[in-house]
Structures are given as structure tokens and as C-alpha cells.
């Protein structure tokens, strides 16, 4: 669809807000937990801080059935092709949360074998700092992502907006 048909005007705002409301309250995460942040992510899913209240109920380990990739933990040079392949297998629209210091920037490990931040190679939407971040921090990151999803427009997904 071309840019001229889907201009942002008053007729599409209700439709947009309905679509965004549906998307942001049912983000299905796919955890890519490798190290210590993976254990904290499991604690986020457990009973004290419960991620299921935000709609992230269905934790599927299949990239074809999820729309949020949470990278938790350090990514080494042997694991990076696996991450790229999984990212490419997810269907649009998809978002990425980079959880922890190691995924955002390499963390404590400035060595030959750790990728210094996954945002060098894949696009990231929300960064959650901490080593490891507290579960409340991860929930805060998810809520910021929900706010970002709420601001999307239909014209973002047209062919003239591809980069």
C-alpha cells in the first residue's frame, strides 16, 4: 500500500489505537537467556513478580510464534550466528529488549570472545541496565516498550517506509 492512501488522519486514529492496544497487551516473549540474566528472567516469570499480568503469558520457545525477543546474557562469538538466525526467523512486527549490561554493551567482559553489545548487529528497542537487573527493572522495561508500541502509526508499516 502506498503512502498516499494511509496518511495519518482522523479516520485512522481509532483504528490505530485499537490495533496498538491489542498488540501491546499481548506481547509474546521469546527468551534468549544465556547466562546469569537468564536466571533473573526466570525469577521475573515466577510468582513474586509475574510477567503474565502484562499479557506476556505464552512463553514459546519458537521464533515463528512470538513477537518479542528478550536477549538476556552475554553473547559470545560462537553464539552470534545463532542469534542472527533466530532474529531473522521471527515474523514482523517484532521488538527486541536487550536485558542486562552484557547484552547492551559487553558488560564486564571486554575480551576477544564477547560481542560488545548486540545493537552493533541487530536493532534494539529497549535497553534494561543492571548486572543483573532487578525483576522490577525488567517490568519497567516492558512497560516502556508498551508505551513505544502505543505510539505506532499505520503508515509505519507501508512499503515506502522500509529502510
Amino acid at each position, binding site marked *: 500500500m502506498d503512502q498516499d492512501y494511509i496518511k495519518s488522519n482522523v479516520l485512522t486514529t481509532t483504528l490505530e489505537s485499537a490495533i496498538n492496544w491489542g498488540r501491546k497487551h499481548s506481547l509474546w516473549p521469546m527468551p534468549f537467556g*544465556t547466562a546469569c540474566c537468564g536466571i*533473573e528472567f526466570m*525469577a521475573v516469570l515466577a510468582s513474586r513478580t509475574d510477567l503474565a499480568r502484562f499479557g506476556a503469558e505464552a512463553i514459546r520457545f519458537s521464533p515463528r510464534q512470538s513477537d518479542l525477543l528478550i536477549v538476556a546474557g552475554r553473547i559470545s562469538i560462537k553464539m552470534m550466528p545463532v542469534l542472527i538466525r533466530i532474529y531473522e526467523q521471527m515474523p514482523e512486527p517484532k521488538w527486541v529488549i536487550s536485558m542486562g549490561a552484557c547484552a547492551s554493551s559487553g558488560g564486564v567482559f571486554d*575480551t576477544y570472545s564477547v560481542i560488545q553489545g548486540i545493537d552493533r548487529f541487530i536493532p534494539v528497542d529497549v535497553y534494561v541496565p543492571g548486572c*543483573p537487573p532487578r525483576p522490577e527493572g525488567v517490568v519497567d522495561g516492558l512497560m516502556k516498550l508498551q508505551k513505544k508500541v502505543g505510539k505506532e502509526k499505520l503508515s509505519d508499516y507501508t512499503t515506502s517506509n522500509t529502510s
Partner: protein
Amino acid sequence: MKITEKPLETERMVLNFGPHHPSTHGTLRIIMELDGETVVKATPEIGYLHSGFEKLGEDLDFNQYITITDRMNYLSPLCNNVAYALVAEKLMDIEVTKRTRYIRVLLSELSRIADHILNIGMLAVDLGALTSFLYGFRLREDIYDLFEMATGTRLTTSYTLVGGLMRDLPEGYGKEVNRVLVETDKVVNDIETLLNKNRIWQDRTKEIGVISKEDAISYGLSGPMARASGIDWDLRVKEPYSSYEDFDFDVVIALNGDVFDRYLVRTEEIRQSMKICRQALEKMPSGDVIIDPGLGYSLPPKDEVYNSIEGLIYHFEVTMPNRGMMPPVGEAYVPTESPNGELGFYLVSDGTRTPYRVRTRPPSLMNYSIFSKLIEGHMLSDAPAIIGSINVIAGELDR
């Protein structure tokens, strides 16, 4: 009509149990050759989390490396901190105070409870029983609260220093620990009631992955994996460190060596750890937790650093690049009993303020190397049970 029997032509299938999979805990990859449902050959591939810990150790100070040791076995970080501090103290020939040793024992045993309960929970989740995972995590949150009261953070604690501890325990700590131990008793009883006599659990874990005594010694196994095969070896009793000889507890041994026995050894070890924690709280001596900072080895407490000139001088003496702790030339190796087995650090020093070589003896690597022998002849669905019972932690395996 005669029906002649022709043999069925079959081909073996190669299946990739990939590095991203829900039931391999962490980044493990196994390439399996299957004949129907039976596994004929399995080749594990590791190294997907290799981060260069040992190369980092050559650029960091003796005290700074303690923050890196937390990230190795991230289920029980205090055991790693204690193991590294013991080696550095042996190399520099320092003797710590009695209160330090008792606090280290108390926190190591709490980490052991946390590690075992997570392992039991994950083994149950892989075989389909979700309840123990949720009960276990609720208990782990209480233990995290205890760690936060003592050290400041939940997971990456970095609590010990070379020569003592970062800070003393707060007031009222004993009451909180006793409350959590009562909870632990209830949770372990609940999990055992749900699982021990359950028909499905017994069918899926008995006679699976049997390890004989000779194999256990040849493959270098230690910890619950060796004790479940009948080897009577527990470093807290045979080579006691950090005042473990003052405590009275039993060593748990099982005889069959299958997955069910390893699960039973771990639940019973939680009960023995609870016994040690109660004894440590009753007998806790009073005193300092840091040795005299004037010797030049350990950092002085923070309120002295900010409020007195001697504290400031000692602090700079230890941390500045040209001065500071100059350990003697030599090497040391101290083995300790972590929840997985024999964890030890091997430090070589050449007289400067950073170590020359830091090596971790990773119990997960030795324990995991027996996997390809255990899975042969079993079915594909036994693989998660066996991996779950080995308790392989990717951070320690790959370092």
C-alpha cells in the same frame, strides 16, 4: 500365500538438539544420531558461552577478580567467592578470623540450598511437573532476600575479600534465617510428597543414566553425581576448609547411580545444609570480620576510610598501581565442595599485583563429559532427564 519377511530398511537420522532449546539449560548443543527413537550416538558441543575469564584474570587485581567469580556458577555465587578468597589467602599465607569463617559457612550452605532447589525444579519442569518449579522459586526469592540483607544484591554478590568479608551481618539476621529455614522444610516436604512415590516420576527416572563407580572415578566426577554412585567423598569432611570440622552433619550416599538417586541425594543434602545453618547461627562467635589492614593485604572498612587518615592511607596502599599487595612468587590450589562438585582455583603469582594465571577447575565440565556415554541406548525423551540430573551450568562449563 507365503509372506516372506524382508528386513525393514532403516536409515539413521541426525538430529540437532540446538544451542537454543528450552530444556538444555543454557547454551548447550548436542548432535544425536537416532535409530527410530533410540539414540545411537550423541556428540555434545560446548563453547557457546566462552567469555575469556582466564584471560581477564591476568589484567585484574586480586580483589577485583572476585566480582568475576560470581558470574561463573550463577546459581550459587557465594560458593565461588569463598573458594577464590581461600586460594588467595593460602597463597599469601593469611589467617582470617573465626567469625569470618563461620559467616562464610552459613552463606555457602544457603547458596547450596538455593542451587539444589533450582536444579530439582528444572528437572521436574523438563519432565512435565511445573509445580515444584514455582514452589522452588518462591523459596529462592526468600533466600534472595537474605542475601540482599547481608551483601546488598540478589545474585552477583561479591561478598568476600582477600582477608575477610566486605561488611558484617546486620542485626536480626539470625531470626530471619530461622524463619526461612522453617519455610525450606515445608517446601522440601511438599516437593517430596508430590514426586517421590509418583508412578510417572519413577518410570522416567529409575534405571536411566546409570553410572558405575569405576566410570565415576575415571571421568573425574565429584559432588552429588559421585555420591549417588556410592563413592564416599565429601571435601567438607575429608579435607575440611574454613572451619567445617566444627560442624556435625552426615554425608549422603546412594547406591544405584541413576537419575532418581541423584535427585534423592540432592533433596537430602538440602536437609543436611539446614542442619549446618542452624548450628552456625547458634555457635557464631563475635569479633571482627577483617584482618588488620596495616599488613597491606585487605581493604579497611569504609567508614574508617572516609573518616580517618589511617584508613585512607591503608586504602590507597592496597589499591594504587605501584604499591599495594605484593604477594610472594608461588602457586596454590585449594579444592572446595560446591553444590556441583570439587571447585578449586589454581593461582600462579609472579610477585606483581595481578595474578599470572588464574584457572578454575570447573566441576560442570567433568560432570558433563560423561553424557555421551550415558545416553547411548536410551530413548530421545530421556535426554532432558539426564541433562537435568547432571546440573550443568553453562557459565562454569565454558568460562
